[in-house]
């Protein structure tokens, strides 16, 4: 059984996405844990880490939440365990989740230092489990070089088995290969993969947005998996809305108050992915009936339009368990751009 710690230098680099892609590309039985949870999700009366819940769902892992994530609170963890206890708990939990598995991915927190005060940073976890540490970095050119240089000076220690870096979200693979890759090689840091940026992975799904806002689903339950590529705030007049270039784009989500019937109608007639109704105002029954007929999701929230748009705009495009398109894309990216034998050998 192979244990891999997946860490990142900065938040949102794509650790979880890489775990999903690599895990599926490898095939076999995949185990997973994220010792120090940082994306708290309350579901089915228990606290989960969002990433833990996602990966467990994708790989059909039925582990106890307490084994997958040992804690969320610095304060609680520092009171309940010292360094030795923490090492032991992490190691034992890794053994339990790894039973019968071909590979176990252990995901670190948002960056290299997160959890260090309670011995739950990625390096401490790698030491405790003996797992091979990989780091995901993102960005272009000099940012990547800075991150990798930093990693070399802190992570590359004899007692930390360092597997290498995965460079994620690279916009220009050719330029990267020509200019940056040679300099990484000069640093002597192994590169386990260079993965290109994919716009599709940045889109939110309707169901993700609905869950994030605790929105009520009025119609279109079957279309909740649709991607949202563009947001359009329906605050203009009917004529202006009809002439808006946003309306011509694919997969738009129109955010408007529930009493703006004319805007809602325009959205429905232009095949919007979803209409997000604000101010807790339901549109008239004929509009709801039309949305039902066209199978367009109508979501209802109590916030005003500005607050709703602000919340949607600030949502991180995390992977959803029902987003099979994205999951397949990540798998394909791992197959094409990751040295899979670095994870299986």
């Amino acid at each position: 059984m192979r244990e891999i710690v997946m860490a990142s230098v900065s938040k949102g680099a794509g650790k979880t996405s890489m775990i999903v892609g690599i895990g599926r590309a490898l095939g076999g039985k995949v185990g997973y844990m994220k010792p120090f949870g940082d994306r708290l999700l309350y579901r089915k009366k228990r606290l989960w880490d969002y990433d833990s819940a996602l990966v467990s769902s994708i790989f059909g892992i039925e582990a106890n939440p307490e084994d997958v994530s040992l804690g969320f609170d610095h304060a609680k963890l520092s009171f309940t365990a010292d360094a030795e206890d923490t090492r032991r708990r992490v190691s034992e939990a890794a053994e339990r989740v790894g039973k019968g598995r071909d590979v176990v991915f252990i995901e670190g927190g948002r960056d290299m230092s997160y959890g260090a005060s309670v011995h739950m940073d990625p390096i401490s976890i790698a030491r405790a489990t003996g797992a091979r540490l990989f780091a995901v970095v993102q960005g272009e050119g000099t940012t990547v070089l800075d991150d990798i240089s930093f990693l070399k000076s802190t992570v590359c220690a004899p007692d930390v088995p360092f597997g290498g870096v995965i460079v994620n979200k690279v916009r220009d693979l050719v330029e990267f290969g020509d200019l940056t890759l040679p300099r990484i090689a000069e640093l002597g840091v192994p590169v386990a993969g260079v993965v290109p940026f994919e716009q599709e992975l940045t889109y939110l799904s309707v169901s993700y947005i609905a869950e994030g806002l605790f929105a009520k689903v009025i119609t279109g339950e079957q279309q909740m998996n649709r991607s949202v590529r563009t947001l359009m705030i329906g605050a203009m007049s009917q004529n202006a809305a009809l002439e808006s270039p946003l309306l011509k784009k694919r997969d738009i989500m129109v955010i408007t108050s529930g009493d703006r019937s004319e805007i809602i109608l325009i959205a429905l007639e232009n095949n919007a992915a979803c209409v997000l109704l604000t101010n807790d105002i339901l549109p008239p029954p004929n509009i709801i009936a039309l949305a039902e007929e066209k199978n367009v999701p109508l979501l209802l929230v109590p916030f005003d339009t500005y607050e709703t748009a602000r919340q949607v705009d600030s949502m991180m495009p995390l992977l959803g368990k029902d987003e099979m398109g994205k999951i397949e894309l990540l798998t394909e990216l791992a197959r094409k751009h990751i040295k899979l034998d670095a994870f299986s050998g």
Partner: protein
Amino acid sequence: MAALPDIKHLFEPRGVAIIGASHDPSKIGYKILSNIVASGYRGALHPVNPKGGEILGLPVSRSVAEIPGDELDLACVVVPAKFVFEAVKGCADRGVKFCMAISSGFSDVGNREEERKIVAYARERGMRVLGPNIFGVYSRPAAMNATFGPSKIAPGKVAIVTQSGAIGLSMIGKTAVESIGLSAIVSVGNKADIDEADLLDYLVADEGTSVVLMYVEGVQKGERFVSALRSATRKKPVVIIKSGRSERGAIAAASHTGSVAGSDEVFDDVVRQCGVLRAESIGEAFEWCKFLSDTPMPKGERTLIVTNGGGIGVMAADACEKYGVRLFDDPKLLKELFSSVTPEFGSLKNPVDLTGQATSTHYDKALDAALACESVDSVLALYCETAVFDAENLEAMIQENCRRYREGGKPIAFSIIGGEMTEKALLSLRGKAVPVFADVYTAVSCFGSMYAYHRRRNERPEAVLEADIDVGAIEELCVRAHRERRSSFLADEGQRLLELMGIPMPKTGLARNLDEAVKVAESIGYPVVMKVVSRDIIHKTDMGGVALDIDNRDEVIDAYRGILHNCRTRMPNAVIQGVQISEMLKGNSEFIVGGRRDSAFGPVVMFGFGGIYVEVLKDVAFRAFPMTRKEVMEMLKDVRSYPLLLGVRGQEKKDIGAVVDTIVKVGTVIHRCPSISDMEINPVFVCEHGSGVKAVDVRIILSDVTRGGADA
């Protein structure tokens, strides 16, 4: 302030002045004067115009002050808006009792200030103002047509009060065509002072009025209106047409007379509570008024249908179900009464089918039998034109039967369908105010209105209910919230309010940290419900601030942290006091009880099927408060989910008495605590009979903080 005059002097003035009387026949100032003269008004009539002279043979005073004599009860002001105040001032100083301000250009165009000034001056001197923006008053007792509408108004028994000038004027013409006579018609316009409530007392007391018809667009001073309606509908039928049902209609109504139509659902529920007959259209209203003004009231609700066609009989039976008309149902008596006039293949059920062979003689015999039978309270006779019927006798047969029924004090109506001869008879009979209709549904709807009024009239008046509540203690809670510039109560204040109202809540406690959360949950006992407590978070479920069915310690810990995480993520600026933990109640009997100060009607209560989907399902009913026990029960039955309270699928009956008490308590708080504008208990968990109710969550909205207290 001087004492206000008796409204009688508006309808029976001893002297009338027309301020702005005109020599020009095309002007309103001339038209009104000429109508008063033509209608045969017997009191003193004084045209006023600075030019003086003579109009229609009457000497013209140059000002109100110049008018001779003492008895000047009514002044009609027909001058441009900018001169109205001076005219009103003159009238008030002269001691005129009522002033009709015909002129428009006040709150109808947004000029409320001038209107207020006029009314304030008038009332200070003991004068009442009708209007502005009206067409005038017609009064049969005074033989006075002080309107600028049609000159000829047929006298009769229907009184009309209208908020729309155009509709009112056209109603005058229409009543003449429909052979409906009027006892009065009053245009209230902007209702700056006198409104419908003021007029109702006089009209229902007037012996010459049998029915009152009101056209309403918006309601102000709703509590007075409700009180006046409740009293009026026990004495005479009151029919209301209200526009502004739709959103568009409401907007149009708002711009028409400066009044804003309240929610139509509230209006509908409240006026039905008051015993009003609400018509869907002017046509329907006129049919009802005509029928009610000339038809004797039934002694009971046993209606017999006599027909010569099976199909039309079935339609009539369907219509009776729709309009709440109960059918006479004694097969033995039916056989006894009608077997001699019905062929063997006819029907002796109700409807009684005389068959297509029937002639006028058969109808006469059948209707004679029904008239003589004390067990039959009213009769609906249907006629389909056949080749066998002696059509030349149709009109006479109907007219004679209607006459005998009227003399016998039993209601009857005919519905006839056919070709040329039938239509001719229909037209002729309707011109003579005989109760005959082309459409059976129209006929039955008239019966429906008659029976609705009959039930109202025969209702035993009950005392209104009010709960015994410590209003002072409740107001103290409000003072604290106002001091902190809050517009709603916190969770603990809501609980305290419920304690003061005597409405139990599930066992509950507030946790300010994780340890307290566990302690409270374990002291209450599982399962529990956990909810965030924050003045800034009103819709807790929408924020992820609620966790249900928490069964053990671990779940308490996770729920506590999950709730705080969700709320802080969604509303980072919200101040969170903690998490409330309560016993979890299970079952399907969750209802909503609410109350609010409606902008139109004042204190209004709401009851319905509750929970988080109440705003989607909208299975609710409204009533004005205070109310009687009977009205509370009717309100419960209006809700489609009412059978859940009776117990379904083997479940026990619920404590309906406790539900009634809860509604009365909420109504009392809204009625007597002006600092509270809205109160909603949702859900109210209704336990089994004898076990009361529990208020699971309560939301209190306070009256406008900036005004420092109650709404005006």
